[in-house]
C-alpha cells in the first residue's frame, strides 16, 4: 500500500504517495522527475546515485524514501543557483573531468559533500573520498584534478 510522505528536495517540498520499499533513487527519478541522479548498479557499488542528505553524501539506491523524511535532500539538479553552475560543476567542465557523463552527477555530489567538510584536501584525501564512485572513461585523473582546482577557487559553498 502506498503511504503519503513529504520530502524536501533542493529546497522544495513534495507530498508523495510511495510504497514503503521504494528507494529514494526511485522516488527522485520516477516520482519527482529528477533523472540527473543516475542508477548504475542499484546496489551501492558504483556511486552514480550519490545525493546529499543533511550534508552527508548518501547512496540514494540504498536509502528508502521513508528514511529521507524530514531531512534536507540535495541532488545534482539543486546545484545550479541563479543560473550559475556550482564551482565544482564549473571545474568538471573546464578541466575535462567529464566524458560519457554517466558517473558525473554522483562524482560531483560526492565531491560537494567532501569539500564542505574538508575545504583544502590533499590529493590523497581527494582520491580516498572519490573511491566509492566508479568511472570507466576518465581514469579519474582529470576528476581528481577538477576537485583539487575547485577546492582552490571556492569551497564548501
Amino acid at each position, binding site marked *: 500500500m502506498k503511504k503519503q510522505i513529504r520530502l524536501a528536495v533542493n529546497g522544495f517540498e513534495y507530498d508523495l504517495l510511495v510504497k514503503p520499499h521504494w528507494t529514494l533513487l526511485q522516488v527522485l527519478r520516477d516520482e519527482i522527475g529528477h533523472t540527473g541522479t543516475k542508477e548504475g548498479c542499484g546496489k551501492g*557499488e558504483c556511486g552514480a546515485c550519490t545525493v546529499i542528505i543533511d550534508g552527508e553524501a548518501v547512496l540514494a539506491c540504498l536509502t528508502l524514501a521513508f528514511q529521507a523524511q524530514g531531512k534536507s535532500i540535495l541532488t545534482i539538479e539543486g546545484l*545550479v543557483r541563479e543560473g550559475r553552475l556550482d564551482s565544482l560543476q564549473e571545474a568538471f567542465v*573546464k578541466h575535462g573531468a567529464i*566524458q560519457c557523463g554517466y558517473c*558525473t552527477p554522483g562524482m560531483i555530489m560526492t565531491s560537494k559533500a567532501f569539500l564542505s567538510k574538508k575545504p583544502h584536501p590533499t590529493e590523497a584525501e581527494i582520491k580516498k573520498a572519490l*573511491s566509492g564512485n566508479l568511472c570507466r572513461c576518465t*581514469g579519474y*585523473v582529470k576528476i581528481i584534478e577538477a576537485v583539487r582546482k575547485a577546492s582552490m577557487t571556492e569551497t564548501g559553498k
Partner: protein
Amino acid sequence: MKMDYVNIGKRLPRVDAVVKATGEAKYAGDLSMPGMLHGKMLRSPYPHARILDIDTSAAARLTGVRTVISGNDTIGFKAGGISAQGDEPYLALDKVRFIGDAVAAVAAIDEETAAEARDLIRVEYDELPAVVDPLAAMAENAPLIHDRAPKNISFKTDLAYGDVAQAFRKCDYVREDRFETTPIRHGFIEPHAALAVWDQSGRVSFWGSKQSPYFTYRNLAKALNIPLSRVRVVQPYIGGGFGGKNEMFDVDFCAALLSQKTGKPVKIVVSQQEVLYAYRQRHPTVIDLKTGLKKDGTILALDAHIVADGGAYLSIGALSLYLMCAFFCMPYRLPNMRAKGYRVYTNTQPSCAMRGHGVPQSRQAAETQLDLAAGEMGLDPVELRLKNALKPGETTPNGFKITSCGLEESIVAAGKIIARWRREKPKDDGPTKRGIGLGCYGYTSGPRMAGHNTAGAVIKVHEDGGISLATGSTDVGQGSDTVLSQIAAEVLGVRLEDIRYGMVDSDITPLDPGTFGSRVTFITGNAVRIAAEDARGQLAEVAANALEANPHDIVFHDRKVYVVGSPERSLPFSKLVKIAQYSATGKTILGRGYWAPEGLEVVNFETGRGNMSAAYSFGTQVAEVEVDTETGTTKVTRMAMVHDCGQPLNEMLMEGQLEGSAIGGVGHTLMEEIVRRDGQTMNSSFLEYRMPTSLDACPLEILHTDTYDEIGPFGAKETGEGIQVAVVPAIVNAIHDATGVAFKRIPITSIMVLDALKDETKTGQAGIED
C-alpha cells in the same frame, strides 16, 4: 601545414560538458512517455538446454500485465556480425546457449509488476551437456552448440606470409611460450536501456543506449520484418560503450515488439547484474607464440596459434579474430609470419569488440615475449624495439600501408623517460622491488571493411552565424561531438560555441557505420570538413559579390570574412549569412559532405590480406611498478606514453582518452577477470568484479610525436583506443623487470606473485599453473 587555428588544437571543454555536469543530459533510461509500459527479460538459468515448453498463462493473468512474448512470437531473425551467418535470435527459438540467454519478455504497468510476471513464466527445459572451455569445445566428441559449426568452430583465420619454416632455421634465437588472457568487462556504468514506440501507422521509433545506432536501425527492420523506412532510431546521450554497445540486443528488440503488441510505449532498462552476466565480454584467448630473431635483434619470423573463446554466438567475432591475427604484423617489421586463429563457441557469454578490439590479446603475448627474448639475448628492450620499428612508407606482409608514422620517435623518447626514471628511484627498496617496462602498438584510424563505410555530414547555417552540424556518428564519451564541431568551426571561421551539434536521428541524419575502430574523428571528421567547405564555398560566392572580389580570395576567420590581403574589406559572418538568405533569390546555406578512405584493399578476414585503414597510429607506453615481495601486491606508480595521433585536435580531450585507457589497462593487468563456474558467472557485481577506482589512478606523462597525417582531418589520427594495447604488456614487463618473473597470464594477482617468488623454478611459468 601547422596553422594558426582558432579552434583546432585548443584545450576546449566538451560541447556537452555543461548538460552532463548539471544532470540535464538525458540517457535512454531517463526517458519516459505518457502511458509507457515497463519491460523485463526472462533469461536462461542453464548454459545449454533445449526449450520444450513456455507457459506464459500465469504471467499474463497477473493484474497490470499487458503482454508476454517469447521466441514463438518472433519471425526467428538471427543476428550476427556477418549477417548471412547470423546465429543469435533476440529471444531463444529452440534452445538456450548460455546462462543469461533471453527466453521471454513481459510488458506491464510498472517494473515491479513486470518482474513479478517474469517470475511466473514457466519454462520447461531439457538440459544438454554444456561446454565452457574453448579447448574442450574443439574436441571431436564435444557437444555441438550450433549444428552447423563442427568442432564448435565459429570462425577461422589463417595468415601466412613469407617462408616461416625456412626463416626460423635462419634464426639465432627462437622461443615459444603460451599466453592466456581472461574474459573481462567493458565496464560502462550505464546499463543497456531501450524505449520503443510503435504507432498505428506502422512506424517504430526507438531510443536506446547504442554506440552504433545504425546497426539497430537495420536490425530492427529485419527482426520485425518491416521496411527500413518505418524505423526511426534516435540517439540520447550514451553512458559509455567501449565496444559493448555496438550491436542491437534482446532488450532493443523486445521493447519494439512489446510496443507493437500493446500499442503503448515500452521501456526496458536492464540491471547492472544482467549487464555483467548476460551481455558481452572481451574474447579470452590462449595464444601459443613462437618468435625467431637474429643475434642482432632483427625479428625474422613469428608463428602464432590462437584459440579465442567466442562464447555462445558469433557477434562480430570474425572481425575480432582477424584483428588478433593481423596485428602481429604491427608495429614491427615482420617478413615471415603465420597466424592461425580459431574462434570457438562455448556455452558462455558472447565475446565481442572491446577497446583495442582483439589487438590487446595478441600484442600482450608478442610484447611480453619480446622482453623475454631481449633478456635472454642480452639486448636492451628499447633498442630491440627501435631496430624492428616500422617506418613511414613500409608495407606489412599482409598489406597494411604505413603512411605517417612516429613510432621510432616515440621509442626514442620513451627510452629517455625510462633512463630518467631509473636515475630517479632505486630498483630495490627493502621488500619493495621496483621495475620499469614498455610496450609499443600500432592501431587503425577506422577500419575499411566490405559493406557500408562512408560517413556523412550536413551543415545548416543560421542567420545569427550559428551552425547546426549533424552526422550519423555518436559520442559515447570519447568527445567526438566536440572535435567534429571544432572541425566545422575551424573551416567556417567561427567559434566552437557557435556550433549546435545534433545527435543521431535516423530520419534525418546521414547513414553511418558506427562508433568503432577509432573511425569517428578520422572518417566522420573528414566528412564534416567537406560539408563545412561546401557551406563555405556557397557563402564565399555571396561574400565575393558583396565585397567585389573573387570567391577564392575570401578568407573566413574568427566570425568574419574578408578579402585576402585587404582585411578592411570585411563582413561579420552573421551579416554574410543574412545577405545570402535575404537577397531576392534567397540562398539557404546547407553544406553536405561524405567521405570514406579511398583505394584501400578490402580486408579478407580469412586470409588477413588487405589494408584496413587509411592511417595507423603508433605509440610507446612506459610503466613503473612497485611490487611488495612480502604481500605480493603490485602498484603501478606512474606511467608515460609517447604517442603518434597525428595532430591532436583537442589536447584536453586527447589526454582524457589516454588516461582512461591507461588506468583501464591497469585494471586489466592486475584486477579484472570474469570468474565462472560451469558457465555461471560468479562475480556479476562491481563489488566482486573489481575495476580501478580513484585510488588506482597514478601520475601520467603524456607526450606526442611530431606527426601530421596528410589524410586525417587537420592532420589527426586515432587516439585513446590503441594505447590500451600497449599498457598491459608495459605493466607485465615492468613486473618482470622488478621481480624477474614474466607472467604469461593476466590478471596478475598478489597470490600469483607470491607463488612465483616462493618458487623460483616457476619463473616464466607462473600464472598458468595455478
